[in-house]
């Protein structure tokens, strides 16, 4: 059953502005579920969240409840949390270890690969063998990049690597910060609820214009150095990575400062074990890796790599979104991990020094966009100074709205069905 509505997307999304109804219209939201959340590749979870055979964790794809499990052979499965009999949830523990899920309603039992194992009083089915035909529904396509598991509800379409395109390299940049080349998401997820459309969050993640205003209070009282990255004199750039993926590339500014671990607000002397391990693994290249730091990239539509933490954007209604956030942990680097966790706790979540204020803006935006006029949201900042970088990607100054225009261009193509998705 299709919930897609052929809205006049060309009239709602212009090169330099978008219409306010895109954040408030339930028909837009229903169309997004079909064209984006139930079709393109969406980030779901990380393999380190189910490290052992038979581990499982509850996840989501937009409003869809998904079980991410690891079977006893070690393979990852994404199963919809819905009994094949009469649709009860088969799993309600947030995480656990089990080879099977048993529906509490009538006792139907499934393996952690989704296979129907048994159902009580089988004579009631007059000898029909249900096991071969029924099971938990599987998300049709599952793939991962460096342990980051993505899924698509479309049976066919671009591969995950095609979907990521220029954003694929971002994961290399992230995991090489670990002396063992692996990220682990073991710190658990804070869930922060906002009464706002999900695209308010998507657009804000790579908005380099807001930090000096939204985060003025914490910049004034803590010696963070983040504010200057997003000033008029910053060498950082905003970038369209294609496919709706966007970046605030802070490396030009960090390279100008040439301070190893400056991106993390510290020095090599204060994390000697980590720096030593990085030098032993990477040799002379370690210096540049430690200067360049971690990416600030929004992977369309829901994974935000925010240097030391990850956010996952989950729409649950046209005007309600849950942001899931955890600290990035680098395998083999306990000293920097402790600090990354504590900095993350300070910054994000319902009481975070940064995210409480971002979230206030999301909710204010949502209330504001309900006002009848002037109808449009302007996204023209820096259009006159867009340029191509050495890889042919469109970039702008740190505070320009290159990322927001890139997101909407891709969004329009998905909603119009111009590109195979």
């Amino acid at each position: 059953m299709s919930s897609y509505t052929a809205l006049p997307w060309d009239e709602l999304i212009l090169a330099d502005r978008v219409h306010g109804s895109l954040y408030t219209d339930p028909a837009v939201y229903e169309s997004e579920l079909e064209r984006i959340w139930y079709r393109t590749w969406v980030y779901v979870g990380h393999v380190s969240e189910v490290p052992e055979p038979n581990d499982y964790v509850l996840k989501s794809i937009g409003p869809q409840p998904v079980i991410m499990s690891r079977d006893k052979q070690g393979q990852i499965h994404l199963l919809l949390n819905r009994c094949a009999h009469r649709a009860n949830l088969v799993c309600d523990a947030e995480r656990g270890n089990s080879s099977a899920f048993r529906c509490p309603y009538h006792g139907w039992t499934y393996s952690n690969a989704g296979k129907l194992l048994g159902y009580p009083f089988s004579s009631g089915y007059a000898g029909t063998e249900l096991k071969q035909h029924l099971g938990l529904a599987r998300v049709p396509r599952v793939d991962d990049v460096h342990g980051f598991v993505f899924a698509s509800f479309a049976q066919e379409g671009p591969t995950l690597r095609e979907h990521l395109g220029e954003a694929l390299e971002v994961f290399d940049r992230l995991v090489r910060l670990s002396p063992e080349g692996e990220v682990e998401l073991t710190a658990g997820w804070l869930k922060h609820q906002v009464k706002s459309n999900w695209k308010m969050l998507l657009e804000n993640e790579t908005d380099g214009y807001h930090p000096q205003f939204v985060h003025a209070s914490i910049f004034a009282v803590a010696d963070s150095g983040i504010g200057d990255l997003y000033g008029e004199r910053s060498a950082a750039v905003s970038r369209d990575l294609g496919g709706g993926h966007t970046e605030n590339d802070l490396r030009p500014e960090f390279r100008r400062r040439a301070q190893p671990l400056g991106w993390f607000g510290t020095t090599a002397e204060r994390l000697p074990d980590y720096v030593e391990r990085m030098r032993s693994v990477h040799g002379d290249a370690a210096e540049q890796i430690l200067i360049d730091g971690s990416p600030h990239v929004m992977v369309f539509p829901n994974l935000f790599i925010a240097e030391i933490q990850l956010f996952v954007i989950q729409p649950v209604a046209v005007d309600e979104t849950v942001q899931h956030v955890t600290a990035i942990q680098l395998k083999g680097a306990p000293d920097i991990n402790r600090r990354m966790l504590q900095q993350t706790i300070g910054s994000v979540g319902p009481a975070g020094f940064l995210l409480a204020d971002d979230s206030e803006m999301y909710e204010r935006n949502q209330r504001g966009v309900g006002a009848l006029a002037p109808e449009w949201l302007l996204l023209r900042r820096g259009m006159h100074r867009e340029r191509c970088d050495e890889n042919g990607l469109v970039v702008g100054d740190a505070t320009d709205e290159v990322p927001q225009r890139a997101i909407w261009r891709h969004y329009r193509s998905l909603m119009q069905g111009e590109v195979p998705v």
Partner: protein
Amino acid sequence: MTTSGLDVDVDVDLVHEVEQFLYREARLADEGSFQEWESLWTDDAVYWVPYGGDDVDPERQMSIIYDNRARIATRIKQLQTGKRHAQEPRSRLRRIVANVELLTTEGDDIVAGANFVVYESRERGVTQWAGRSEYRLRRTEHGLRLVAKKVTLVNNDRPLPTLAFLV
């Protein structure tokens, strides 16, 4: 004065003193008396609001708040800038602290527990917060002071709205 109604001795004077301290701490937080609220904490204080259950390890797991004394100071300074948007305007707050219980005493420290309900009013509407607080109090030359406060919200395993006031 000590009475022994149950199978433990309860120092009712101490209970009264602790209750009065907890009520004052609650009122200062409700009314945004930031400097006075901050002065209640000792130099080695920890202010902790866990997420995801009652017994998570804040050194390994995400928390809503896990402030050492320096970070408590930063939190207060941020609130005082007038640009902490999540508290501009400040939430209107009133909380009830109840079921106050002395749990243990350890040297100069007193460990007490209490339940609470907070009504928070902002433009987004009224949010009701509820949970249990555990306090470690120390008797100092200035009277009782807070060494640690752990605030366990009953719904700390679910998505939570912004919580930028002093809970």
